[in-house]
């Protein structure tokens, strides 16, 4: 596998200014503060974290909807931040985004057909008569929309269908990388699964690389090969899904997993490790380890020296001086997580059982 995207020490600070005529900067919101990771071709990387941890800003920096304060993003060896004009346009063709809110991310005054064909207009593709419409209808069919609804407006569609329109627009140019920023959090439970399955199928068919951002940990586990956990603008833990969800090492990951409600009234019982308070302001983050103000395992060292991302027992990397031990993991995680439901060995349909019970 080759590396598709390489992120190194990515930083985005939003200045806080004071004064009306003569403005001076009095501080900065450190939305993303030194994030590094790689994404391999064809894999799904999940990014999780609480509101305000910099997930969405990271996504926008990756496809250069924003300029980073410092750091580099290289996409297939090219530094995204240095691209201009046509080169940037070509780059955008390979990286597309699906947004969170299917209501505000579609222009209400355009028909679905023209929304999905916009990428073709921008990149001047399918110029022959009728070709564009044909391609758009193919795409609509592919994402499970009725191609005859080509001339309808977004308000005529339900939330789930609108998100499908967003997905169709994103895959129109056959990108290499798809960034999905909370694609299902605005949808009803029964509809979420439809969109998740669609994204998974498309990824398999088109060989897409997917960056999947969400705050719902069970959805991320379902979708992603590897998961990065962010807290206040930093990646605090990065591991494969199997490792992260069974042996989290960073206390923050442990707390997140401990907080997930489990849809099983008996299997979910555990010693809940509740985090107190809210996420500190990213304008004035705590010193050294940013989690030390809420961390149940904090020691004096944590407010003194910042922990670096290091490989921990289990194989993932985490930034913590005092990572969780196996015993702590066992008591804090939902019992259901560590002791997975076992499927009966004989998955073969056992229809004759019906007679005995009838």
């Amino acid at each position: 596998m080759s590396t598709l995207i390489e992120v190194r020490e990515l930083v985005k600070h939003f200045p806080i200014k004071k004064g009306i005529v003569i403005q001076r900067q009095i501080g900065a919101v450190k939305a993303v503060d030194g994030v590094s990771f790689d994404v391999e071709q064809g894999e799904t990387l999940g990014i999780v974290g609480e509101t305000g941890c910099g997930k969405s800003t990271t996504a926008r920096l990756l496809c250069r909807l924003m300029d980073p304060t410092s750091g580099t993003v290289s996409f297939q060896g090219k530094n995204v931040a240095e691209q201009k004009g046509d080169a940037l346009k070509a780059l955008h063709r390979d990286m597309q985004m699906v947004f969170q809110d299917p209501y505000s991310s579609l222009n209400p005054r355009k028909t679905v057909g023209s929304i999905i064909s916009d990428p073709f207009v921008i990149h001047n593709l399918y110029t022959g008569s009728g070709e564009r419409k044909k391609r758009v209808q193919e795409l609509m069919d592919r994402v499970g929309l009725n191609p005859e609804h080509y001339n309808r407006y977004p308000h005529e569609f339900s939330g789930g269908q609108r998100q499908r329109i967003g997905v169709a627009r994103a895959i129109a140019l056959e990108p290499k990388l798809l960034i999905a920023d909370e694609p299902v959090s605005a949808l009803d439970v029964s509809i979420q699964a439809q969109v998740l399955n669609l994204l998974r199928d498309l990824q398999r068919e088109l060989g897409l690389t997917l960056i999947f951002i969400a705050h719902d940990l069970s959805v991320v586990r379902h979708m992603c090969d590897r998961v990065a956990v962010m807290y206040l603008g930093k990646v605090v833990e990065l591991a494969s899904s199997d490792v992260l969800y069974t042996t989290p090492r960073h206390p923050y990951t442990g707390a997140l997993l401990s907080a997930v409600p489990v849809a099983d009234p008996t299997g979910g019982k555990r010693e809940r490790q509740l985090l107190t308070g809210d996420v500190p302001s990213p304008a004035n983050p705590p010193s050294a380890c940013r989690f030390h103000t809420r961390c149940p395992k904090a020691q004096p060292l944590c407010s003194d020296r910042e922990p670096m991302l290091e490989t921990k027992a289990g194989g993932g990397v985490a930034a913590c001086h005092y990572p969780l031990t196996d015993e702590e993991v066992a008591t804090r995680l939902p019992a259901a997580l560590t002791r997975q439901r076992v499927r009966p060995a004989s998955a073969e349909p056992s229809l004759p059982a019906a007679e005995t019970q009838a």
Partner: protein
Amino acid sequence: MSDPLFSVEDLRVSFHTDDGVVHAVDGISYTVQAGKTLGIVGESGSGKTVSSLTALGLTRSRRSQIEGRIMFDSQDMVTLEDDQLRQVRGNDMAMIFQDPLSALHPFYKVGSQLVEAMQAHRSLSRSAAKARAVELLDLVGIPDPKRRVVQYPHEFSGGMRQRAMIAMALANEPKLLIADEPTTALDVTVQAQILALLEDLQKRLGMAIIIITHDLGVVAEIADDIAVMYAGRIVERGSADEIFHHPQHPYTWGLLTSIPRLDNPRDEELVPIAGRPPSLINRPSGCHFHPRCPYVQEAHKRVDPRLEAVEGDGGSHVSACLLKTNVRTQIWEGLEAGREPESLQRMASASVGALAPPADASHLNLHGELESDAQLPGEEVQS
């Protein structure tokens, strides 16, 4: 069991609109005992919010029609006069709304809003009410309540606003707290805090809670009993254990299999519910769920199922499904074992085919195997 604190009997709420009559709630019944928690689950537009708003008299208008009874403290909330209703609302029965930012008035300090809620119901001096407001904010876990009480809602974070809402609802120590999607807009960590807070307060104050949500994880954590709503009706009702361990309605199965669960193998396919919720103006005939039900039979499109007690479970577990109980049990066991929905569909049609052959043969052709495969259990059942 003692008399329930709160009981809804055959409640129907419809709204007259220019497009037609919206049957938002269509004959639902449930009871809540003091100190217990009922979870109401369903998609948007299933009528879960309307039913609880009606309990507080908040759906009364010229264009709405409300039938049935809502008994609370031996008063019928449906027929209660407006001024009597106002005495109950916010006093003995309180509600936490979904969106704390729009439910709090942006123009008044959080403290003043709390004071107003208290002074509306009891004669309390302003200073005493203020002191109690600080106490309440402390109770719901807002740090530094003395400073926070004179702040405006926009100075609070999402989780704190929700806590302030809870504090306001608790101001008069209600006997019943209705929480409408109290955690939907919040992060998991804050959600866990709020749920723990509700549980703790329930223990200390002994109040009953109705929690309305679409998140099955949340109800599994907190609810004693669960009612599943679809298209304005309760399609299944039972204890949390019954609903999660032997659910009896295809819609409940759909909800359970369409969410990724932390305790399932990671590569498991999700089984979404096809289609989308029906319009409440033109509801589907027969079983309202039939257009989306994978196990639908021809007869289900005509016959309207009633809530019936599930055989083998205590009388508290009821479900409105036309499939036979043993078939349902097998389908759910099949789904639990990760079997292909197709083979389960075949099982469903086989059993019903044996019970009462569908009037038109065209349906049988949809499941071609039925005619050829003589080994299907349903046919043997009949013999």
